[in-house]
């Protein structure tokens, strides 16, 4: 008993520190977002709000274009997530299983594109989107975000596919499953943690993307959250309450996605696959 306690106490303490480090910034942002402006910038910061107000949320959601930005971000992020998962799954499976000339080269090229600084593509990409008539259109952001997320997603998913025994596929093939059937019925359920990971990765990549969204989108009606929020908080006069309320609302979809997909979805699918 004493031996177990000797291990449990330091472990518990370490977990507590880790949780504090992870949760504290979220708590700080949220708690400050419900403080009065004077308390937010008070000389001595308060751990618990001494004043409680929802005025910053009212200003954010009722008197700014933030709800529009939120809606746009959701459309772009979900679009990016779905397309990235679809393309990356097929690409990763193809690179992992199919034998064709230049396979290794193609795989390396995909990795190189991920290493290439996207910011260098700003002007040519703007020019390209302009030629296609996609400037100031959300679809332009989906295209860009998919190109940002897909290379890493392919690489990650390919690593997941490698862990799946080839015999399972062969058995399915003997039972008459088609290539697509093998992907859908065998590979995807077994690689579910990987699929969930790349889905979250694609969503967050798109949700937080700033540079291309700021250049390719011109009108306020099509702005996404990172760019829209940066604009409404001001430059010379920063509205700290608005900034904190915006940060809280911005973090929510990501937290919800992690809560839903990151655990339940992965656990449920992998458990089903193993059975």
């Amino acid at each position: 008993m004493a031996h177990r306690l000797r291990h449990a106490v330091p472990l518990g303490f370490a977990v507590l520190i880790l949780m504090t480090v992870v949760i504290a910034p979220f708590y700080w942002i949220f708690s400050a977002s419900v403080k009065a402006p004077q308390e937010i910038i008070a000389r001595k910061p308060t751990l618990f709000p001494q004043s409680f107000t929802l005025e910053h949320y009212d200003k954010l959601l009722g008197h700014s274009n933030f709800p529009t930005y939120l809606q746009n971000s959701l459309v772009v992020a979900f679009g990016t997530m779905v397309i990235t998962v679809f393309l990356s799954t097929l690409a990763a499976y193809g690179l992992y299983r199919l034998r064709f000339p230049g396979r290794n080269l193609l795989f390396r090229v995909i990795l190189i594109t991920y290493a290439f600084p996207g910011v260098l593509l700003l002007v040519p990409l703007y020019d390209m989107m302009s030629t296609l008539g996609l400037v100031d259109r959300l679809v332009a952001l989906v295209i860009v975000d998919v190109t940002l997320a897909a290379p890493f997603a392919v690489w990650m998913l390919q690593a997941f596919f490698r862990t799946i025994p080839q015999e399972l596929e062969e058995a399915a093939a003997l039972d008459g499953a088609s290539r697509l059937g093998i992907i859908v019925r065998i590979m995807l359920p077994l690689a579910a943690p990987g699929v969930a990971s790349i889905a979250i990765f694609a969503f967050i990549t798109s949700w937080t993307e700033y540079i291309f969204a700021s250049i390719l989108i011109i009108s306020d009606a099509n702005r996404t959250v990172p760019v829209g929020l940066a604009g409404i908080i001001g430059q010379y006069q920063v509205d700290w309450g608005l900034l904190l309320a915006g940060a809280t609302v911005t973090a929510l979809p990501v937290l919800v996605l992690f809560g839903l997909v990151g655990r339940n979805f992965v656990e449920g699918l992998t458990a089903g696959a193993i059975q």
Partner: protein
Amino acid sequence: MRNNLAKSIVLLVIALLILPHMPATAQEKVSITFWHMEQPPYRVERFQTLIDEFNAANPDIEVKQEAQNWGEIYTKAPAAIAAGNAPELLFAIPDFTPILRDLGAVQPVEDFVAELDAQHKFYPAAVAQYTYDDHTWAVPLWNMAHSLWYRKSVFEEAGVEVPATWDEWLAAVETLTKEGQYGIGVPANKQLYTDQTVYDLMINGGADEIYNPDGTLRFNNPQTVEAFDMYSQLYRFSPPDSPGWTWGEAEACFANRTCAMILQFTVITTYDTQAEGDPEDLGVAPIPYKEGVETPGTISYVNAVMILTDDPAKQAAAKKFISFLLEPENYGRFLNAEPGLYLPVTEDGSTAESYWNDPLVVKYKSQVEVMLDNSTSGRLFGFTGGNTFPSIATISAQNLLAQTLQMVVIDGMSPADAVEEGQALMEEAIE
């Protein structure tokens, strides 16, 4: 009857052939897109009110605003120009204009500015920041100038007079630094705010000219070294987090009484909404100067609007809109999109009822008067002494004044060595 019918048909056919090639008629609206970088919702709303009024009074023109961000406009505008999507009107600060002018996108407007000057009388310094290479490249719209902000009660309690000279300033800062309070808040971030505060000290140390008249750099001179030395002395009494500051953090430091003084364009909105909001206690003064300096002053940014279209009909519509904004009955409302920050650049605008009757301006009238007075001695690095050198855009974009300061206050170099290194960096940048 048949002849009439035939004539009518012929006329109709001719009309159908000619009409598409005719210039815009009264029915065809001329569309003007206006990019500005004033994104906070209340500023956009105020601009929209004025745009709606203009559009209603001018049914043949449709002005549309699109708020952009200063952070991206340096990339976005050239990209839009290259792709043929540029707006007809684009806001500017002096060191942004040369970048677009070099792309051949900016229309000269000296004749139009002369027309407006005859009606409203521009302050000469406002036009000067946009006049070089034999042309004027933008129409001034408002000015922003730094001042020294303080609380009268804090000074009274410490027995400190408002400093006028550097010696008085250092003494005041030292006296005011006590438990929980720093005598002054000055930034040391490699960012525009630091460029601005450094230049405040350069102006008031007699080092406002960065260029010689022939365009060579004269940054490395004894006056600049003294200004950097003074800044480093003030910095010792600034909060420890000031190396990461931009304007917002400095204002928060002042609003929560941690900083007894700051250099800022304005603190009025923040002081009114996030601090005491007592106009009797809010002090504003000119930035102290080194004794013996003949022309003290402050950094000032004249914000202007560039015309990017070469289409005559669009140019005419754009000019009509700018004229509308500068009419005294509209101009004050335009400036008060951010009361107490945007200062008039025309004589009739400075006395316009529409400017002075805004509730916040009424409340802080004495402070606004001092700000206006300070702004008349405003200047901007690279745009002084009747010489304007567009290469300053490169120096400004790389925040080389701030970088030089960091060598002193963060890396511990001597001001003389840092200024020498700073000039070398500037020469390399503009090569």
